[in-house]
Structures are given as C-alpha cells and as structure tokens.
C-alpha cells in the first residue's frame, strides 16, 4: 500500500538532483504555444544537449469540462459538444453518440441514413488526412504541401458547408438520422472531387513520399513495437502502422461498411514512415468507399425520429465505439433513466495515442520528437475535452 501524491514541481525538482558529469541536464518547455505542438500542448523536456531524456506532457490548457456539461444537457444537445472535441473528425464524433443512443433505445434507421452517414464519415476522414498531410510536411520543414493540403481540403469543406451549414464544427449526424437531407447536386460534386483527388494523391506521393529528406527523417525514427502499441492503448493509424490490423470498420462493421469493399492498410515496422504511409493509403481507401456508395443512395427519409421526441436511455451502462480519423472513439454512458446522462465519458483516441510519445521519443533528438509528434496526429481539444 503506497500512495504518493505529487505535483509537477516535485517531479522537476526530484529529477534535477541527479548530478551528471559532462553536459548538464536541463529542462526546457516546448509549448503551450509552439507551432509544432498543434494547439496548446506543453511538453516539459529533460534534455542533455539536444538529446531528449524524458518527456513530461502537461495538459489542461484547453480543458472545458465537456463531460461535466454533458451531465446537465440532453443527449441530443450533447451531440453538439462532441464536435468541439476532435474538430477534424466532428461528424464521426456525432455518429459515436448517435450510435450509443440508437443501440440503447433500439432505434432502427433506414439504408438511406446509413449510406449518407458512411459517405460523410469518409469525407471527414479524407479532409482530416489531407490537412494532416500538409501539416506533417510543414513540421518537417516543407511549406508547399501545407498549401496543397488546405487547397484540397477546401473543396470538401464547401461540400459539407452546402449540406449542413458549417465549415469547422460540423453538426450533421443526430440520433435517429441526419439533420438535413443532401442537396440534389451532392453526388455530382463528390464524383467530380474524387476524379480530382485521385491524381492529387499520386502527386502528394511524388512531392513528399519520394523526397529524400522526408524519408531520412521518418524511416526507423520513433519505432513503436506491436506489444508497446497495445500496452500504450493506441488505436487507429498509429496502431495499424505497428502491425495490428484493428479497424472497427472491418471488425465490427457499422453503417454501410459491411457492404462495401475496402482493405485495411497495415504497417510492419511501426516507425514514422509506416504511420505516414498508412494514412496515405487510407485516403485511397476512403475514395474507394465513397465511390462505391455515391451512385446508389437509396430513397427514403433522412430522419426516422421526431426532433421533439424525448430521448431516455434504459438504466445501466452503455458503451459503443466508432472509428474516427485518429482511432477509436468510445462513448460510455451511465444512465439512470432520465433524459440527460448520469455520467457520460468520451474515450478519446487522441488522449490514448498521445502517451506513446513518452516511450518513442526518449533518447532521440528534438527534431525527431517533432516528426514523431506530427505522425501521431494529435488534436488537442480532444485530449483535454
């Protein structure tokens, strides 16, 4: 029985006492305002020269208490808070909450709803990965891909804006359906875009993947073994790059994923390069999925529930998960039978992916830390919630 409560100050002072000869060890803050920490993440780095000895992530700079707010709002309102978490896969987050509500209340949706949801989830994954690709290259010192990534994301953003009216925090999926029906010209626009993006992905590969600097900076850097990846709770592209083919879209199909043909990209080494390659391959697979669905969206209603209908979940624990662009988003609800959750908890993919960096980057240089962090693709609001 040993419980020892500590503070950050104590941690810093206790490791400072270790005296070493030669280069002195020192602490440096990376962030909270740093271009390559993608938001307000603060690393306290214990350095020796420029070799990183230890990484202490300090969180909470954008903590908004979304789980506490969730205890006083209805399930339908809570959907709108989830896209403030991981703002790059907001529609998939909406789906997570909707899925838990629908499964607990046994609401049957129709095929049209599921097809639209699947298409939008893949659009979201695509736009998340194109943005990530640009930001990743910028972190490693190449500026052009950043502009390319944003340019190609812009089309998708405007297509989603046409449908649901917002450009960043997209609320689209609701328990029982989707908010608005798709526009008549939706499928033509998407088809044009697919025709546009396919050659662009090849161009991405020529521009970045074939670049010798990018290759040297990612190959065999930040290796995360299979066992470590599982033990550190990583999911999504990070886990798949380490060689574990865990993809909920394949293993526990929901939406229309069971009826479309796609493959899961799996890496072998688990280094930065594999994580890069897995995401590029996922972009191609997302295009395949959309292409198979876009021509046969079945007719029907876009909402099977009244907007005013009360949502009450049966008493007990409910858990369900979806595959976002970054990994598994789990929604855990403890219900006491009232119309707002007794406790709602988001198992955020970013929170669980983040900690593997303490394992991967120890012993490497600061520039490698930037490369590793960039391939983890962390969105900070989702870590802090």
């Amino acid at each position, binding site marked *: 029985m040993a419980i020892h*409560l*500590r*503070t950050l100050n104590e941690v810093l002072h206790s490791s400072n006492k270790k005296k070493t000869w030669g280069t002195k060890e020192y602490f440096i803050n990376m962030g909270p305002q740093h271009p390559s920490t993608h938001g307000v993440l603060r690393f306290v780095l214990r350095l020796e020269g420029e070799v990183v000895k230890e990484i202490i992530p300090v969180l909470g700079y954008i903590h908004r208490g979304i789980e506490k707010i969730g205890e006083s709002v209805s399930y339908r309102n809570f959907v709108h808070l989830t896209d403030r978490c991981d703002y790059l896969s907001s529609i998939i987050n909406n789906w997570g909450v909707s899925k838990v509500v629908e499964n607990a209340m046994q609401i049957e949706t129709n095929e049209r709803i599921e097809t639209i949801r699947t298409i939008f989830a893949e659009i979201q994954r695509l736009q998340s990965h194109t943005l990530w690709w640009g930001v990743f290259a910028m972190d490693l010192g190449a500026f052009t891909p950043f502009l390319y990534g944003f340019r190609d994301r812009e089309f998708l953003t405007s297509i989603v804006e046409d449908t649901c009216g917002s450009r960043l925090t997209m609320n689209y999926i609701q328990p029982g359906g989707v908010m608005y029906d798709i526009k008549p010209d939706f499928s033509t626009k998407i088809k044009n875009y697919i025709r546009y993006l396919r050659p662009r992905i090849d161009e991405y590969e020529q521009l970045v993947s074939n670049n010798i600097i990018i290759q040297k900076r990612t190959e065999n850097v930040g290796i995360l073994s299979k066992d470590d990846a599982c033990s550190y*709770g990583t999911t999504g592209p990070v886990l798949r790059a380490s060689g574990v083919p865990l993809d909920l879209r394949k293993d526990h199909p929901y939406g229309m994923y069971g009826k479309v043909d796609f493959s899961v990209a799996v890496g072998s080494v688990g280094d930065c390069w594999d994580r890069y390659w897995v995401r590029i391959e996922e972009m191609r697979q997302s295009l395949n999925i959309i292409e198979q669905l876009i021509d046969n969206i079945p007719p029907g209603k876009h909402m099977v529930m009244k907007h005013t209908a009360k949502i009450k979940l049966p008493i007990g624990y409910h858990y369900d998960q979806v595959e976002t662009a970054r990994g598994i988003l789990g929604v855990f609800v*403890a219900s006491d039978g009232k119309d707002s959750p007794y406790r709602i908890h988001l*198992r955020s993919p970013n929170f*669980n992916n983040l900690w593997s960096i303490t394992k991967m980057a120890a012993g490497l240089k600061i520039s490698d830390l930037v490369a590793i962090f960039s391939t983890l693709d962390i969105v900070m609001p989702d870590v802090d919630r």
Partner: protein
Amino acid sequence: MNKMTASIEKIYNKYQKFIVENVISKKELRINSENLIDFMYFMRNDSDLKYDILCDHTVVDWVNNNSFDLVYNLYSTEYKNYIIISTTIPRNKPIINTVSGIWRIAEWQEREAYDFFGVLYTDHKDLRRLFLEDDWIGFPLRKDYKDNFMLEM
C-alpha cells in the same frame, strides 16, 4: 459470438467467487474489488481471452449509494471482442490497486480518474493531477462538488 460466450464461461468457472453479477448479453461483468489485479492479469494473459488493450477506464459516482463504480473497457485484438469490467469501492475510502503494471496506458487513465474523482491508486508511479492545476481544491466530476464560481440552475 460462440467464442465470446465460451470465454465468458471460462472466466465464470475460474473466478466464480469474485464475480458479483454477470450480464453476458451486454458484455458486462461486475467483480469484487479486492481481486482486481489477479483478475486483470488473468484477462490479459489467458490464451483464450488475451484482452491486450485497455480501451478505457473511467469512474461513475453513485452518490446515493455512497459508492464509486470503476469501469474498465478491455479489447482483444486477437479475438476482436470487448468486455466491460466494473467494480465498486466505497466513496469515503476510494482506494484501489493500480492496473498500470498490466497496461501502461492505465497510468494516465488513472491520473484522469484521480483528477476528477479523487480515486487513489496504490503503487501508482506518478499520481498527480492531469488536467487541473496542482493546487485545485476538490474533485469536480463528483456529484456533490461545489465551487464559488458555479452557476446553480
């Protein structure tokens, strides 16, 4: 699905005396808090179970029963199934063994639980606040948490 039921039966046979409640249809098991570590080792290492990812760990504050429910979501990458393990500890003495020796990610998930609920984990290497500041008073996700700046509806 058959595999799933078979493995739950195996858990049930071996750990019958610790299991308080068993809801197979919802994939939920409720166990005794004293045997948590043994049970979790069994869940990860048994060749028919192999729950190698701790997906999630969270706490539910049942203030009327004066107890905390600790919830663990496990996932098996080999057999592709997940299970919810829950256990109850008293609210006035919220002490439980850490599972961070089994899954590394538990170290941070437990820090979150300590930060928001004040659950104390024995033998935890680095138990400190995760999101809130070190001098924060109280544990905000507890149901009876009060604060001078809160807006009471």
